[in-house]
């Protein structure tokens, strides 16, 4: 078994895959891609690996996968024997998928805002922040109801790929000019996530809780 991650240290999407690999205790090789300023992910060499020109990419025994959310599901499906990260029961599977798609969809506006502020991307920053705030509010509203039930995680009584997928760009949003002042339930959820055994930090996210 050999796992290779095409990785960029400052990417939240790569970070979620590194977190998953860490939580599952998997050994892997990191292949650093110079995303910024080198734009190596848009070079012909990398486009041969991922025609979408995006990070991360995971190679697992010859299987080549792109899309952070797909990679999380692949790793949980193959290596998490207990199925805690990717619940299969009908009451949990759908909601976990729903929030996973949200992490790769609406929530990526927070990544856009950060790309603008940190890596000089040319985009409509006000539109990105507005969309990110709308998404944060949807998540905070959900977690507020979870708090009323005494719950901590997006779905069920333990963290799943949904929490993992949502965590990085919410935690890193200050880099894109989006504070956490208006999202008290999100703040509590982020703090609990950082307390998980096996959690590790990245640039911009503290491991001190």
């Amino acid at each position, binding site marked *: 078994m050999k796992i290779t991650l095409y990785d960029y240290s400052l990417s939240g999407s790569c970070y979620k895959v590194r977190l998953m690999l860490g939580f599952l205790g998997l050994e892997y090789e990191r292949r650093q891609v110079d995303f910024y300023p080198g734009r190596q992910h848009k070079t012909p060499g990398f486009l041969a690996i991922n025609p979408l020109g995006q990070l991360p990419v995971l190679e697992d025994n010859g299987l080549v996968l792109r899309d952070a959310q797909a990679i999380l599901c692949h790793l949980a499906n193959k290596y998490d024997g207990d199925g805690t990260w990717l619940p299969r029961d009908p009451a949990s599977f759908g909601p976990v998928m729903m929030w996973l798609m949200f992490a790769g969809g609406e929530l990526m506006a927070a990544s856009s805002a950060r790309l603008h502020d940190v890596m000089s991307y040319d985009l409509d920053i006000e539109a990105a922040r507005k969309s990110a705030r709308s998404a944060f509010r949807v998540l905070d*509203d959900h977690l*507020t*109801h979870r*708090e*009323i*039930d*005494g719950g901590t995680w997006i779905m069920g009584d333990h963290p799943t790929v949904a929490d993992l997928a949502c965590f990085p760009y919410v935690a890193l949003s200050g880099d894109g000019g989006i*504070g*956490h*002042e*208006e999202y*008290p*339930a999100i*703040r*509590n959820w982020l*703090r609990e996530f950082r307390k998980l055994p096996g959690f590790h930090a990245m640039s911009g996210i*503290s491991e*001190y*809780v």
Partner: protein
Amino acid sequence: MAPDQWNAVALDSQIRASSSNPVIVNDYALALWRSASGEVNAWEDRCPHRGMRLSLGFVEGEKLRCIYHGWGYGPDGQCKVIPAHPDLTPPKTICAQRHAVESRYGLIWTNLAEDPHARLPDLGADDGWEAVRSIFLNYAVQDARKAVMDDLVGWNGALSDGDVVTLELPDGTTLAAAFQPVDAGSTGVHFVARGPAVSAEGRHGLARQVVQLRARIENN
């Protein structure tokens, strides 16, 4: 100079033990932190050392530690620990800026005045209040208050104006809305309730109604 006035800044239940939280009130950034033993503190969100936001820090027992160089401050605001100089007793002059803070009616209140004399709003007995939820509206506080009042008029209940807006619901539950002026374009509204409807089920229902109120106000 800050007015001698108490503002609700959070739901008590959402400021967890051993946490530091960013809160803005009247354009002023606070680190609202709770020690391991449960004491709440409202400090200027600025480490006296290098100006780092203390809301990004972490709580260790009864001390707030700055994330930048790990300087640790006790509840009196005094610096107690400088990790780079473990044998040094930090001088008294290194002190975080503290502000008056109270926990009452399920809410956390701050008063930024240097020498506060104003009294907290009186909502009767302190016991039995439960969190419903907080919302943030993109209005200055006077406009947010008016919008909330105008919406609550349409609810089934007896509405009372005051520092805190209250609504007596037909089942005897009191719903209270306390306002946090954030800045010229943002206001926090913190809802708590007391009475028969404060079961988990009742709070889910009230929280959903508050979300609908927010949607109606924003769509107006």
